[in-house]
């Protein structure tokens, strides 16, 4: 088999594996989320469908696929239909530059578990992840609904707030490593626990995690679909699978952020004492996902003016001071 043929087949297999596995995991995470939230609130969560409610995912899937697909008569139809696809597609496109696992040997060839190894990986993931917010924005503006419009306005607020913090906070680790490639970032931390960047850059880690929560609109920052204030924000008019695609996009984005944080700050897929690298990164990602749910159970929603206040007047100066100190130390 020639190299070109192999390359084409390899890329197609990798891309479809990423999409299939992660959309399946995204479905499973909804079950995981309901269970974790339930236990934290001293409830039992879904119990009736299957053992311990395990088949609830299948039931939800059947419901989403068979529900009537309603497009409001007064909406701007093409944009209304394309908005959920933007969210889901960009979530998976961003994953193209994420190196999920360490390279391994298969059929005598070294396989790199990354779809496209661009050497500016970290910027690509952040940039394409940011494009994902066009989904909620377009959905809210196209659905001709007051709550949708408010959700779209809040999307803009969220975007202009978190984007600057995520960009500036990731700058300090980039300065230390001296590369924008996620593989390089991972290799920099190959010297065991103490070489992890979280110990050199604790502030950047916290800031990036907060910005990541805002990017995936998880609970302290889920102001664009806040049920108690604006019904469901951008998703008010959506039903069935179109709404499900927003959901898959959100969960896929959570996994992207979790992989990004593990790769940049938590040692990536390097071997951790006796744990092999591939399992180490799965454990890290699972812990970060649990942290997402824990935060959701522990913290209330915040208001749009509070997120702007926090991002621009507290976190952004903090990130700049962090960069300044990092620069001084490197000099």
């Amino acid at each position, binding site marked *: 088999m020639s190299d070109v043929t192999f390359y084409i087949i390899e890329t197609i297999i990798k891309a479809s594996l990423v999409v299939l596995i992660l959309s399946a995991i995204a479905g499973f995470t909804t079950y995981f989320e309901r269970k974790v939230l339930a236990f934290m609130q001293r409830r039992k969560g879904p119990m009736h469908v299957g053992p311990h409610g395990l088949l609830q995912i299948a039931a939800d899937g059947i419901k989403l696929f068979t529900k009537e697909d309603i497009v409001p008569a007064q909406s*701007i139809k093409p944009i209304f239909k394309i908005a959920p696809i933007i969210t889901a597609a960009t979530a998976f496109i961003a994953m193209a530059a994420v190196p999920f696992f360490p390279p391994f040997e298969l059929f005598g060839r070294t396989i790199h578990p990354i779809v496209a190894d661009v*050497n*500016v990986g970290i910027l*690509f993931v*952040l*940039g394409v992840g940011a*494009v994902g917010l066009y989904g909620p924005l377009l959905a809210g503006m*196209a659905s001709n609904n007051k709550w949708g419009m408010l959700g779209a306005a809040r999307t803009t607020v969220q975007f202009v707030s978190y984007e600057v913090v995520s960009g500036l906070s990731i700058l300090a680790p980039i300065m230390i490593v001296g590369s*924008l490639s996620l593989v390089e970032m991972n290799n920099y931390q190959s010297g065991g626990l103490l070489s992890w960047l979280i110990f050199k850059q604790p502030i950047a880690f916290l800031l990036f995690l907060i910005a990541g929560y805002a990017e995936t609109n998880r609970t302290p920052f889920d102001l664009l679909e806040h049920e108690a204030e604006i019904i469901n924000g951008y998703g008010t008019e959506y039903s069935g699978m179109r709404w499900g695609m927003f959901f898959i996009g959100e969960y896929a984005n959570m996994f992207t952020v979790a992989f990004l944080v593990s790769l940049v700050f938590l040692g990536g897929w390097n071997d951790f004492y006796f744990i092999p690298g591939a399992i180490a990164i799965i454990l890290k990602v699972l812990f970060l996902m649990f942290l997402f749910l824990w935060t959701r159970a522990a913290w209330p929603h915040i208001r749009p003016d509070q997120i702007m206040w926090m991002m*621009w007047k507290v976190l952004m100066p903090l990130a700049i001071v962090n960069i300044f100190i990092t620069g001084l130390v490197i000099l």
Partner: protein
Amino acid sequence: MFELVAFYLFAFLTIGSFVTTVKTRQPLYALTSLAAGMIFISAFFFMLDADFMGVVQIVVYTGAVLALYAFGMMFFDSSSLIKEKQRPASTVFILGTMIALVIVSMLVAPIAADHFQGAYPPIEGEGNVENIGYILFTKYLVPFELAAVMLLTAMIAGIVLASKHMNLKESE
């Protein structure tokens, strides 16, 4: 072969989206196709192995067009069409053709010349980001720093203007 397919695909997509931006009377179509066109352009940078420029194209224009959306939300009702003022078609036609001719001749000039060499040829063995960094921080250091200072000033001014009344209590 891949590059050829990708080039024609993205060329048609880019031109199609920008034509939509110009021709449509629906503000939401115009903004969306503008954003789409800007992001499709980044594909050409990736094809030229200029990964950094490609990503910068995505990051910058995502934010820039999003700001346009914010203004669009304030000034237009996105569910209705815009009435455009029709200027004399001949003026638009002549101006458009002249600008297009000037830009195309500027871009084609290096190809038509028989001897063509970049003012700052890329350093062999260095990555894309490093090459941009060398040029930016040696030859173009002063413009770069000036732009940075201007952006910082604008940002601080924006925060001051926006946060004037943020500290008011809820009861007031």
